[in-house]
């Protein structure tokens, strides 16, 4: 259905000053649904997501989409762990990606109003985005990412520091997006969230893919000792 996939990653590695941060990673992703990247702090989740998105430099290896890289990039959006708020109103933040692509201001605003409603920001369109609460900022970032109808949406720990209700709202938005055909790749360290959202799981440990596969399989019968320990909530390093 989407022409981005399959994604083929071969020996992808990121180094900083000679030290390997992530990799070598071998991974093939296809189909629909949500791929959830889990792993302890510092295991390389953020770096891997940025690498796949093309926002971090690849030191060696290859990342191949089913279409040319430039085209693949335009079909993706990224929601950062700490959402970036443009110093503009909520409405203009959400409309921004459309305006960048040349949509008329009026049309972009109309669509943005729509998306603001959908994520529950409909009554604060004129509010300055940087003064929103954490949950509201995250919802804004989601609306702004989804308004461009990406085929693939990256989310880096979208629910850190959010309470139950905000988390539920955001998971609902993500479930809707998934149903509408957007592929999700998200990182989380919340196992509950991983179980609720995941169709595939990638378990990272020390910068490498320790285990990966269909979510049901992974959660039922993890193959490795470390994965079992991590799922139990033990400290894994």
């Amino acid at each position, binding site marked *: 259905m989407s022409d981005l996939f399959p994604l083929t990653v071969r020996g992808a590695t990121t180094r900083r000053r000679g030290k390997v941060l992530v990799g070598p990673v071998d991974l093939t992703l296809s189909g629909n649904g949500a791929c959830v990247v889990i792993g302890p702090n510092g295991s390389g989740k953020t770096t891997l997501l940025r690498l796949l998105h093309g926002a971090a430099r690849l030191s060696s290896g290859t990342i191949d989409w089913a279409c040319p890289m430039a085209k693949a990039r*335009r079909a993706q959006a990224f929601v950062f762990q700490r959402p970036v708020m443009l110093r503009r109103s909520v409405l203009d933040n959400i409309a921004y*990606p459309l305006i960048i692509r040349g949509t008329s201001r009026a049309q972009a605003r109309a669509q943005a109003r729509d998306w603001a409603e959908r994520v529950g920001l409909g009554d604060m369109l004129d509010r300055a985005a940087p003064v929103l609460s954490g949950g509201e900022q995250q919802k804004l970032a989601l609306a702004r990412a989804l308004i461009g109808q990406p085929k693939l949406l990256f989310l880096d720990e979208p629910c850190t520091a959010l309470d139950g209700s905000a988390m539920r709202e955001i998971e609902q938005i993500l479930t809707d997006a998934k149903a509408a055909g957007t592929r999700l790749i998200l990182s989380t360290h919340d196992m509950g969230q991983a179980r609720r959202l995941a169709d595939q799981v990638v378990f990272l440990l020390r910068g490498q893919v320790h285990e990966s596969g269909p979510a049901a399989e992974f959660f039922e019968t993890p193959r490795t000792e470390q994965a079992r320990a991590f799922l139990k909530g033990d400290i894994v390093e």
Partner: protein
Amino acid sequence: MTDLWDGLAQALWLVATFDPELVEIAARSLRVTLSALVVASAIAMPLAALLAVRRFRWRRVIIAILNALMGLPPVVVGLVVYVMLSRAGPFGVLGLLFTPTAMIIAQVIIIVPLIASIAHQSLRDLWQDYHDLLISMNVTQWQKIRTLLWDTRRALLTAALAGFGRAIGEVGAIMIVGGNIDHATRVLTTAIALETGKGDFALALALGFVLIGLAVAVNLAIHWLSRTEREGRW
């Protein structure tokens, strides 16, 4: 002492009655400085944005030059512009020496570095904030610059006001390149210098009041802008 009080009273009278000479000089001052401000902002702000978002080869050199220019005494700028525009100089054929245009050129050179460096700081800070998002959205270089300029517009206005304050109060350079010619290149600061020298305190003080009024207005505006920025209203 009585001289001074007389002068003060007359000065207030001149200001209150919109004395034609006073108005003419003040208007010329504003015209020259506002022109210089528009030109300088048009150069300094896009330059500052470019310096913030791009890592090109001449970046460090340009920043160094801007910093050096900022420390340059205005009199020296006046001297250099004078040499350039004088009949024997490279731009002598244009016949610009002792015209308001020459004064605008000198003021532009004096305030471009100031405006650029104030603007650059805010633009660089904002770019650090925005970098990941804008890169992820594949915005073009030109869109980056426009977005940054628009979203720092308050800080840019502050930079412009600082430039205005510097330019309107400047004496040395415009005295040299303008020549302080009556009805042609006489502005607030050069007129004050002249009238004070002549002992005509009334006009000098009246001109001074106008200048102080402008400076205070500029500073109030900067203060107000920075306050609304802190309160997150835009």
